């Protein structure tokens, strides 16, 4: 069926996400440098390099891949990103429990569970200039697409668009969370680092799944 993709087929997307983050290391740190402490790319890349090492030569599906990302970030990466993205991937993996394939509804459930974990821990709201400004609209877009009967391809396109729009929305915001918060008005005018990594992760996920859909 063209509207879904099996967990096994989706496995390489795990590695694609990891590689995308590792490649964006300096870029993400630079964005963080503008308003935070300039280590976002470093932290993220260190975590995802461990993920690549751990999955190397292993046989796994995307559920196990995401569980490994979650575990690795939670256990080995501190900062805010360890718990936030660690819980995010752990919850997305848990949402795949008992599933054999990803369809629009499953994707929506994954994002909803991941988002809930991040909000529970970090208590950020849309407009606080965090990764939530990417994640929440993306989750909503996927829910709406799934709810209105769009197929997986269209749903993934909606995810990609919402993430990009969400990222761009952080430019005009004043930071309310994290290290950037102390900047106040001076944080306006630049993107948020966590939002940038979140958009990258969601875009790579969307592209990776789309590619394997044909």
């Amino acid at each position: 069926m063209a509207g879904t993709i099996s967990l096994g087929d989706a496995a390489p997307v795990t590695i694609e996400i990891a590689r995308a983050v590792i490649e964006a290391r300096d870029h993400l740190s630079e964005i963080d440098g503008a308003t935070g402490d300039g280590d976002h790319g470093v932290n993220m890349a260190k975590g995802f390099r461990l993920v690549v090492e751990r999955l190397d030569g292993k046989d796994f599906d995307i559920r196990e891949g995401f569980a490994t990302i979650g575990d690795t970030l939670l256990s080995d990466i501190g900062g805010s990103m360890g718990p936030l993205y660690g819980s995010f991937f752990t919850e997305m993996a848990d949402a795949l429990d008992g599933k054999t394939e990803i369809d629009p509804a499953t994707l929506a459930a994954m994002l909803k569970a991941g988002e809930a974990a991040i909000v529970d821990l970090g208590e950020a709201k849309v407009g606080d200039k965090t990764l939530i400004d990417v994640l929440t609209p993306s989750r909503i877009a996927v829910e709406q697409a799934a709810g209105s009967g769009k197929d997986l391809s269209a749903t993934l396109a909606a995810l990609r668009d919402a993430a990009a729009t969400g990222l761009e929305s952080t430019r005009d915001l004043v930071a309310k969370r994290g290290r950037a918060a102390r900047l106040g008005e001076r944080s306006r005018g630049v993107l948020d680092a966590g939002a940038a990594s979140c958009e990258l992760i969601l875009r790579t996920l969307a592209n990776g799944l789309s590619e394997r859909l044909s």
Partner: protein
Amino acid sequence: MNRVINDPDRVTEDSLAGVLAAHPDLLAATEHPRVLRRADMGGTPRVGVVTGGGSGHEPAFLGYVGPGLCDAVAIGEVFASPTAKSFHAAFREADQGRGVACLYGNYAGDNMNVKMAVKLAAKDGIRVETVVANDDCASAPPDQPENRRGVAGEIMMWKAGGALSAEGADLEQVIAVSRKAIDSTRSIGIGLSACTIPANGKPNFTIEAGTMEVGIGHHGEHGIAVLPVAPAREMAAIMLEKILADMEFGGENVAVLVSGLGATPLMELYLLYGHVDEMLRARNITPTHRFVGNYFTSLEMMGVSLTLTRLDGELDRLLRAPARSIGLTVLGS
């Protein structure tokens, strides 16, 4: 980047090896590679005192582990919170059956990781209570204490909490006095040059030559004002003004801590202290405990931080109590 490192992504682990080799009498490794504990925990079970935070602030945080101070420390990457797993392991190392006081600084990452670690410890049956330091009065307005960061004032919290634990107090008491210590403490920093996280290879912020960042954060976070570099006398006045406006300091004794941020020569820290001492005495405030040195740094940042703690009889006694660690040794009197 002209630095004394090997792989820039491994400075934290590489540095810990040296710390352990240099101080076997003081610090011991644990099963968790990012957790150190006191080499000798002492005889009678006490309330365990734990701290933790990112690397790059040395001697903080691991330099405040030792008799009369903290029992275990969770160590993060440079400028990043330790993992929940590390905090959890530190709780287990420190626990002697009387509960654990986790005394740490208010940063998003640390808050989340401590929160998760406390839950994990609860499953082990270890009771952990926390005090989150927010002494940096430049990091948010007075009506937003929850947004204020912990900086060098944490040392006062560790000293008070560690000393009360050594006296045999229970967890509630240790938590209460640690909270009193940090609630009685205000800090502010002035940054004069940026620093470079080795893994980044270049400074992640800039301070223009001839300007100073008043109220800079311990990771180079922007402060409350960028001003032309002022004479030390004025720097002291600016910092003191901000602290004294933030909290009532009326005629009592205080502890004063002037810490370099990394690169500022010790002679300049003393130079600044001289002005602070004079200005305090002019206001009838007596600095009875005086600390001048590199107590809480930010890699090789040029700059200085000032911390004031208002002392009652109990805090005065606890600051005088003996302690031994890399960062602070008090002979006792």
